[in-house]
């Protein structure tokens, strides 16, 4: 962590000055954030302990919603599917986007075009993506299975029409969509690594892999931390992609927590119950984030 001013006179006036200073920087953003985001979120925490249904009064029910969650089999399915998605999606996307960034952080010809191409999936409307990939994954007539059959696979998977293969299909599309986004962030991070560090390492006789491990990786740490946190939270919160591609199906094979929340809240109008489930999702995300925070802080020291 960057060291702050320590050689000045300590004491309460210094602290007050710093507090005022800090707040003056934060205030423009914080005012909007507090009103439009923080307050509804705090309100959400309150609703989770009630039986609100969007109209009328919210009656306090204590932890009844949470007890109900524990016994709810759909909730368990959603939890399991969310973890399934996250466990595969996070490392896959991280590795691919880092590889792409390293590959494209060069002066190869056409790098501009390739960078744009990698970014295309993220920029496209999710509805179009769902339609196109569903068509590509079509079990009887889609090109992917046609290719597999041509390669000799007798019984190609049913992809989005099969309960076993729907989640892998979604993971593939999710990674395809997001790798350009995280590649861009890695690229920006790579660009801030000063050349001198690589020069110095080369002078010391380090080979390419050693330069990567000893210069690139440590210098990228704040970026990697940011990307890992956003990727993790994003994976646990995944919603639009699944909603338009498979709608949680077939059956409940791709039902994730966000969709569970959406169904309970908006299809069945049980906002109190949906809020309690949101809190569980929030707790999962935040504990993973805190762990990542601590690991990062320890590495820093």
């Amino acid at each position, binding site marked *: 962590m960057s060291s702050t001013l320590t050689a000045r006179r300590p004491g309460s006036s210094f602290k007050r000055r710093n507090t005022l200073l800090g707040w003056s920087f934060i205030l423009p953003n914080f005012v909007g954030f507090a009103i439009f*985001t923080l307050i509804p979120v705090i309100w959400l925490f309150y609703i989770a302990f009630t039986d609100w249904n969007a109209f009328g009064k919210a009656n306090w029910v204590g932890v009844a919603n949470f007890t109900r969650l524990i016994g709810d089999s759909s909730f368990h399915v959603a939890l399991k599917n969310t973890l399934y998605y996250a466990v595969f999606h996070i490392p896959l996307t991280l590795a691919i986007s880092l590889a792409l960034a390293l590959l494209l952080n060069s002066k190869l010809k056409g790098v501009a075009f390739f960078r744009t191409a990698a970014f295309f999936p993220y920029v496209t409307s999710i509805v179009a993506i769902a339609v196109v990939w569903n068509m590509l994954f079509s079990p009887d007539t889609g090109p992917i299975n046609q290719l597999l059959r041509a390669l000799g696979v007798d019984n190609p998977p049913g992809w989005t029409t099969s309960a076993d293969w729907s989640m892998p299909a979604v993971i593939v599309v999710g990674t395809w969509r997001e790798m350009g986004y995280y590649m861009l962030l890695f690229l920006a991070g790579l660009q801030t690594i000063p050349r001198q560090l690589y*020069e110095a390492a080369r002078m010391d006789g380090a080979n390419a892999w050693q330069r990567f491990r000893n210069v690139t990786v440590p210098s990228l740490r704040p970026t990697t931390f940011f990307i890992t946190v956003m990727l993790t939270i994003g994976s646990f919160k995944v919603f639009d992609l699944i909603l338009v591609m498979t709608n949680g199906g077939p059956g409940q094979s791709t039902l994730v927590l966000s969709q569970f929340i959406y169904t309970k809240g908006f299809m069945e109008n049980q906002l109190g119950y949906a809020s309690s489930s949101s809190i569980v999702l929030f707790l999962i995300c935040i504990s993973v984030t805190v762990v990542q925070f601590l690991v990062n802080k320890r590495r820093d020291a």
Partner: protein
Amino acid sequence: MATSTVTTLVGDLHPGSGRSRAPRSARRRIGRLVGYVALVIAAVGVLLPFFWMLMSSLKTNNEVFTIPVQWIPKTFVWQNYVEIWQKSDMTTWLKNTMILSVVVTFLQVFTGSFAAYGFSKVRFPGRDALFLAYIGTIAVPWQAYMIPQFILMSKLHLSNTLWAIIALQAFGAFGVFLMKQFYETVPEDLSEAARIDGLSEYGIWRRIILPLSVPAIASLTLLTIVNTWNDYLGPLIYLRSPELWTIQIGLKTFISQYNAEYALIMTGSVLSVLPIAIIFMLGQRYFVEGIATSGVKG
């Protein structure tokens, strides 16, 4: 595959070792070749769905979903692109989406980087807890607090105006988080030197830190534009009047009204990607490369 290519290329990128033996240059050429091949394969994998989308946008409706898949249309129906402007209200949607993107991005970048400076360079009590609260809100799914937020917005008479979307997106935690992480890569020595020279914290932010974080700002700009461009649920709830619609809402409505017209749906999708793709293609050099030698001296 990736690792060996990567290490070879990374080796390539930082020339100047001075010793160019024959084996090394041959290895370099092979490395470059492998690199190109990898890129081409990756590009095909990425662009294939788009290729299909683009081709389908030029087909007649019955040709879009055929068994087996038809990659190239029999006849190119360029008329589709004219029809979509006529049948739908693309101009209004584009205009609204552009306005939102620009305003939200400007506010996000400005207030976000300002706040990020406070979070990363100034120490004051409660700072870390507050920052954790920021990140915490990212962890809450939006549909969970959508209704309370909508009620609040309606009470403030912001609903059914573009201001609602601006209010929602411009002060998000994402921008603050991103900028803070980048600020932490800037060594404190610079600010120290500036402070000794008598610069105020605001001056340091404006003259030293901000110019250095151009790549990060460029990334944030691009990502915010894309996020605003792609936002569907927000406009669905807050932008009801058809003259306020953005591209995503317009496209969705168009799809549900003309649901047999797949060719036009693909045309609309291609059109919705095009502006962003052009902006990115033209500006990505500035977005990503930044100031190449702006690295810290000494």
